[in-house]
């Protein structure tokens, strides 16, 4: 048999039907559901008199809309409230597992999937959210889908797909001190561009990837979509198995050992063919900061805001000019001179306990700059509890950070956590699109360490020199 990539293996083992001239019907092992992209799907089922085919493979939570402030108070935004209540009702009516706003399992869907152990190697995983790519960190094929496809998966437990191509991003060497998984993925997107992965599933390989914790791997896979990729994935190894051991939904004891043996066979075969290969030297990387309005517009913290006139062609020049105008930045400004109004630490990219520990190590016994409003939003209730057990919340609060309840929060500005027009943020989230964090808001994407240091200094600083 021809050597296969990990993606090929997972794809092939999930084919329900593969007729000539038709797209493949693929079986889905896990369907994650949230309040924003599901109401129309459930309504579609109801209108057609259909049921959820596999409620046992469907898990729902509320994350996008929920307030991150005191949840014993009523939700002020009536439309948000209605969307949350609609999922409450749909979960009950269709009999699916549901972590509601007050549940100890609630959190960002891409944080709770892994921490509950629903996310496992070899699975096909979908969610009506583009950052579903996160789960690929476990060696799963995980992809974002639209609401019609959500309805399709609810009704059939299958997805109709054209097979994407294989792409390998090999990250050689090791990341230098102060350079994180977030910097790595920002560097990758900067190199291949926001359309660089379109039509492909990216497998991240190489020494630097192997050295990452599961949290770091999730950060990398999470932002695969920002390079346009259908999914991102990393072969499971001892780091993966150690993470999964004892997670509530993972088989235990002998069944766990048997599962591990199976998971080990998922890795790409030696000699497996990728349609595209990109190599990156991790040892050359630095902390990165985005300067523009898409995640490919990034530069080193020691760099300057680029001059649009130096770009290759007219459309890139125009896009850079528009981005700088929106961002309120002058060409050639040193990144370290950019001052900030807000700092947001959170999102499905960087809100896990490891991220919060890194932040705590930077801000311990320091104070948030007087001109900065800084909030920390844990990825899940579980993360929040763990952080509080470790005393991280005291470190944050003593430093002047707001310590919030779990949710998507200021990553996409659907709840009251938003930037005001013209406000500038350092954010650990994944998108710096115009208005992403609130109309007129200006977002700079960075690692949790860089965001933490910027909150204290009031402007960007090179975290490698932090004392």
């Amino acid at each position: 048999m021809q050597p296969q990539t990990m993606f090929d293996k997972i794809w092939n083992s999930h084919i329900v039907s593969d007729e000539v001239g038709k797209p493949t019907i693929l079986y889905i092992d896990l369907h994650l559901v949230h309040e924003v992209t599901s109401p129309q799907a459930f309504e579609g089922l109801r209108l057609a008199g259909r049921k959820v085919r596999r409620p046992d493979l469907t898990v729902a939570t509320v994350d996008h809309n929920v307030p991150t402030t005191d949840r014993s108070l009523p939700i002020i935004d009536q439309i948000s409230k209605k969307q949350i209540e609609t999922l409450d009702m749909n979960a009950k009516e269709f009999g699916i597992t549901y972590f509601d706003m007050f549940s100890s399992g609630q959190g960002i869907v891409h944080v709770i999937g892994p921490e509950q152990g629903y996310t496992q190697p070899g699975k096909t995983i979908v969610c009506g959210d583009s950052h579903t790519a996160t789960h690929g960190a476990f060696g799963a094929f995980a992809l974002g889908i639209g609401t019609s496809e959500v309805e399709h998966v609810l009704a059939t437990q299958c997805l109709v797909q054209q097979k994407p191509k294989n792409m390998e991003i090999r990250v050689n060497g090791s990341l230098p001190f102060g350079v994180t998984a977030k910097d790595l993925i920002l560097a990758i997107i900067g190199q291949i561009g926001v359309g660089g992965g379109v039509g492909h599933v990216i497998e991240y390989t190489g020494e630097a990837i192997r050295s990452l914790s599961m949290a770091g791997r999730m950060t990398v896979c999470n932002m695969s979509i920002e390079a346009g990729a259908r999914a991102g994935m990393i072969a499971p190894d001892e780091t993966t198995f150690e993470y999964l051991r004892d997670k509530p939904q993972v088989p235990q004891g002998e069944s766990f050992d048997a599962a591990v043996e199976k998971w080990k066979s998922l890795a790409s075969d030696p000699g497996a063919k990728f349609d595209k290969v990109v190599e990156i030297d991790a040892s050359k990387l630095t902390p990165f900061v985005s300067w523009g309005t898409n995640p490919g517009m990034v530069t080193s913290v020691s760099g300057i805001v680029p001059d649009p006139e130096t770009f290759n062609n007219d459309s890139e020049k125009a896009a850079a000019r528009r981005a700088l105008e929106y961002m309120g930045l002058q060409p050639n400004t040193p990144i370290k001179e950019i001052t900030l109004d807000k700092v947001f630490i959170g999102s499905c990219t960087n809100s896990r306990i490891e991220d919060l520990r890194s932040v705590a190590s930077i801000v311990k016994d320091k104070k948030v700059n007087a001109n900065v409003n800084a909030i920390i939003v844990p990825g899940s209730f579980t993360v929040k509890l763990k952080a509080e057990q470790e005393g991280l919340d005291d470190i944050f609060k003593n430093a002047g950070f707001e310590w919030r309840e779990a949710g998507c929060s200021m990553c996409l500005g659907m709840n009251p956590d938003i930037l005001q027009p013209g406000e500038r943020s350092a954010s650990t989230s994944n998108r710096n699109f115009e208005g992403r964090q609130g109309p007129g808001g200006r977002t700079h994407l960075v690692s949790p360490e860089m965001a933490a240091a910027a909150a204290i200094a009031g402007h960007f600083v090179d975290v490698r020199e932090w004392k």
Partner: protein
Amino acid sequence: MEPLIKITGIVAALDRENVDTDQIIPAIHLKRIERTGFGQFLFSQPGWRFLPDGNPNPEFELNQKHYQGATVLVAGKNFGSGSSREHAPWALLDYGFKVILAPSFADIFFNNCFQNGMLPIVLPENEIKKLMEKAQSKLEGYELTVDLENLQLTDTDGFSVSFVTDMFRRDCLMQGLDDIGITLQNENKISEYEETLS
């Protein structure tokens, strides 16, 4: 779903690359629980379609007089990048667009269009450029015919270019079929697959 076979309509040009779904429809407007009514929020980020007072921004492409009533949108590469929100095609459809032409699309957006009876067409950059110039310069409104049956774009000035699309998707669009019904015809295969599990 309304079948789409052949349409002739006005073309609007949006000469921008990487137009992301947060621009097509900002997250703040994703809270409706229906599929309809999103057109009013299309491109509603500050500086795009509307002025701060809510009136149309005269500078914005789609507000040009000769683009009014457009059903065909021609845009730059990587159109629809970012979020999986199907509210993006819903907003474009509700506004009136049925066909979108671009040199490339983001994958999820591309799939989402087909699910709603909209046709995204990938064309080489030079053809996109020609169409943009025609749409921009013809001030009485530039009309294009999109023939899905024969996979051909034509206008009355002699422009003609063929395009490719997935034939299964083409058939679904032409018949107005939705995927769920088609997949459920494979009920036996799904059940057989499920028996191999566990």
